[in-house]
């Protein structure tokens, strides 16, 4: 059990997000937040990500981290639609994400129903593991 700190709340509600200070893709993913000025840790807990234990997990991490980076920029852009630099970066991350998805699907099979890896018998949608680990 952790010690409970009743002064844990530090709601840093800045109203202006002038400078776009971003973490790297890897650090942002582990932290769950791409934006340096929005990050709020909890009681000295250090975010960590267990190292992938096989190729499938490693390739899945690549998909997850680039899609996460693009998604956090997506939410920023919904509120800040004129930020050209952010739009550029979003598209860079999306490109990396699409490559990571292609690489994964080539090795392991389809992860969406719009994949072009659904053209073999038996039905490819059954080939890939379900995310909650039911097959393991």
């Amino acid at each position, binding site marked *: 059990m952790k010690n409970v700190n009743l002064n844990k709340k530090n709601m840093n*509600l800045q109203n202006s997000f002038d400078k776009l200070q971003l973490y790297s893709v890897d650090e942002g993913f582990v932290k769950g937040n791409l934006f340096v000025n929005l990050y*709020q840790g909890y009681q000295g807990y250090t975010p960590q990500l267990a190292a992938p234990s096989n190729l499938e997990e490693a390739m899945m991490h690549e998909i997850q981290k680039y899609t996460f980076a693009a998604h956090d920029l997506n939410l920023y852009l919904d509120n800040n639609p004129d930020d050209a630099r952010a739009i550029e970066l979003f598209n860079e991350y999306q490109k990396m994400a699409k490559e990571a998805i292609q690489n994964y699907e080539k090795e392991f099979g389809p992860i*969406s129903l719009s994949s072009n890896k659904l053209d073999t018998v038996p039905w490819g949608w059954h080939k890939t593991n379900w995310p909650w680990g039911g097959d393991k």
Partner: protein
Amino acid sequence: MFMYEKRLLYPINIKNRDLRLAKVIVTQYGGPYGELGAALRYLNQRYTMPCDRGRSLLTDIGTEELGHVEMICTMLYQLTNGATMEELEEAGFKQHYAQYGMGLFPSDAFGVPFSVANIGSTGDPLVDLQENIAAEAKAQATYEHLMDLTDDPDVLEPLAYLRQREVVHLARFQELHDYYKEKFQSGNTVKSLA
């Protein structure tokens, strides 16, 4: 419309069963400040947002929350899958088993089934966004409580990630709220923002 990608938003690999922990983590599935309520709240509010900023933010965060539902359910599955009768007995899990077997069920930590009864929706964007800011703050506090209740790093990792997402969502809702507040103060009506 909705599409599905066969992957988690963030990796979850829980190695040790813990039915007692599952009994409290379930609050973020079907509880008052949980992910299912959040998804429905935001996806419901998006229809009456006054401009593209509101429509897109509510849609995009609401969609992300559905992915969070999946993460919570994954945690519940991994924390309970393969439990023996002795483990059920020891963890006080017999009521769940009697009603739901080893199936998942969206309830709060007391077993009260999920309800949308108190999901705020007023059609007033400033009010809806204040509801959302409060909802995110409550979810963040709940994740902090859950983090206080375990030392298992496999569980702490995804809980910390989900907590941080609440921090970000709160900031984005606050940002949009302040934008609309300024717009309305300068004489715009809801209709003129579209």
